[in-house]
């Protein structure tokens, strides 16, 4: 590899890392904004709270729509959920992360994508 190539790759990697960190920071800020917007009603509950139908019924409307979409899809990114609900990706990302904090959903990262799912096969 030539010196020029090496120099051109390193900044790219650094920039990629910065972008990833910014995205994660953004997700966390979206959750904080949403929690404030809804008066922090949706406090974190049990670390492994099932997403059963009674829980779905008790969720506020905005979160129920997101949770229902995950129930139907099984596993999805914020972008995929946004396609189904016709709401903005950033909004869905915030709601999904909120459901993770509440213990109703699990989150798994694969590369740059974050997947959300209801843990139906957990203990119990």
């Amino acid at each position, binding site marked *: 590899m030539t010196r020029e190539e090496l120099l051109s790759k390193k900044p790219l990697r650094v920039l990629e890392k910065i972008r990833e960190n910014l995205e994660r920071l953004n997700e966390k800020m979206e959750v904080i904004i949403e929690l404030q917007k809804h008066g922090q009603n949706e406090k974190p509950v049990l670390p492994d709270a*099932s997403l059963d139908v*009674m829980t779905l019924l008790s969720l506020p409307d905005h979160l129920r729509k997101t949770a229902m979409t995950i129930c139907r899809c099984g596993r999805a990114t914020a972008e995929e959920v946004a396609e189904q609900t016709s709401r903005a990706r950033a909004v869905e990302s915030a709601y999904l992360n909120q459901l993770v904090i509440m213990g109703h959903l699990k989150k798994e990262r694969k590369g740059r994508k974050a997947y959300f799912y209801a843990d139906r096969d957990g203990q119990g």
Partner: protein
Amino acid sequence: MGKIIAVHSYKGGTGKTLLSVNLAATFAKLGKKVCLFDLDFRAPSLFAILKVDHAQCWLNDYLNGACDIKKVMVDLSSSISGNGKFFAALANPGTEAIRDMSAKDRKWEMRALGRLLSLRNMLLDDQEFDYLVFDTSPGLQYSSINAIVAADFVVVATTGDRSDVDGTRRMLRELYNLFEKKTGLVINKVLDSTSKSKLDEMNARVKDVYQVPMLGLVPCFCEILRAEGNLIFTQDKPNHPFTKILEEMAKRIDANQAN
């Protein structure tokens, strides 16, 4: 793509099973590929109505994760006229099984919902079924709400009974609306249905009370009571007014789902 129809009601005895069986049979008579599911685990009845005693597995086993859905489904197409296909998935009527299903916890119910939702891929997508019809338990029970969440359309059966009217209105507002479900109302056991003007008047009143689309008004037919659940009415009595009402209902659902 096929659809899941749940037949539900607030109270028992509104005619859910009668409607489910005959709606599924009518779809099959119209040439559709249909499977009828007995999700009334507290009072299973389809095994008796359809006279099936040879299911390899029960629907309970499928929801317990103990067997494949194909082992549950019984092919009853030969009992229906026309080119359609008619299958049934039955609930275990044994006392032990009923007790077992009543004692399931939230985690189990969550997994059961997952298994109901996966019927969409397995039967509607892969096996090209046109309709899965869920016959449910009345009221707000886990198994019924699971069925409603999994369904595309809910047929709500009700009667003129005061407590039924109030409960059904509340359920429309606090259950189906919250899950954003499309619903169609069937008023069963309607009395004084002899004149068209009375029926029109009732239709208008019902629309005003419930604020949801009407699927049909079913008069109280003594012939249905006399049959004592021994036959698939729409199949055995093709010219009976009940059969005509069910055909209209099936066509209305079909048109609604195509939109």
